[in-house]
């Protein structure tokens, strides 16, 4: 009896989370300005639409280097020295709701708000060793 109540509660919660996740991950960022953060501070801001050719940005951290590849309209983590490379598997930065994150090296790549100086409303690439 009690089990049934809990199953219902958890199913509803799970569906709700799934809904919220699907919703926020499909909202494409209105901004094309990307911010690259290291240890919480902004390293570089790039307008993806104004990039010509390809460019690599290398960030060094405690656990080795992160190489970020920027080309017109696209940004991704090309390679990383961290153990599991979740940030590389993340692929291109697409949505403001799924930033690229490398936890070992504390690198975050995300879309910036259109307004200057805003931070938390954007996307990043993720790369963290198994917990």
């Amino acid at each position, binding site marked *: 009896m009690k089990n049934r109540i809990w199953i219902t509660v958890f199913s509803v919660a799970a569906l709700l989370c799934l809904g919220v996740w699907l919703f926020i991950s499909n909202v494409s960022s209105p901004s094309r300005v990307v911010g690259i*953060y290291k240890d919480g501070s902004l390293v570089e801001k790039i307008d993806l639409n104004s990039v010509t050719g390809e460019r690599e940005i290398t960030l060094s951290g405690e656990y080795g280097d992160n190489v970020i590849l920027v080309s017109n309209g696209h940004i991704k983590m090309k390679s990383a020295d961290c153990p599991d490379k*979740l*940030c590389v*598997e993340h692929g291109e930065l697409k949505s403001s709701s799924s930033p690229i994150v490398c936890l070992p090296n*504390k690198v975050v790549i995300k879309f910036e708000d259109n307004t200057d100086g805003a931070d938390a409303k954007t*996307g*990043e690439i993720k790369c*963290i060793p198994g917990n």
Partner: protein
Amino acid sequence: MHTRKLILSAILTAFALVAFVIEGAIPPLTPIYGVKLGLANVFTLFALYALGTRYAAAVMSLRIVLGSIFTGQLVSFIYSLTGGLLSFLLMILLKRFFPLKQLWVLSVLSAVTHNIGQLLAAVFMTQTLAIAYYLPVLILSGIIAGAFTGLCAQLVLMRLSKIHYKS
């Protein structure tokens, strides 16, 4: 006799460690950090219900410390510990409300707490609030993984209910 419980908790720690290392060797399903089954938790739950709070605390903390040493990932230690401590606190606070038949419920609640704790640690470590966007996925994965690991521990314990570990 304490010896029996001591030996059993040592065995459970070893099992948990093996489960942790094996699970870590399997490539992650998604590129999202923290989405994993958490098989090692089966043994913590087992210890909690069969041996009691103190032994479960020992099994879990030893597994986290040894697991970080075995896998050689010091960063993950911080996340593991934050999540582990939070979820363990929740477990010992709420255990009295959940008899063995509802063990899986407690497991789901603690798995979700674990994931939220890890996310908080990640937000704190990177100083970036944007990571909080992963909250819905982590809650979802916590519910699924928690139900699975909880059921594992619960079903085994129910079948072994004639054994008196505490003797």
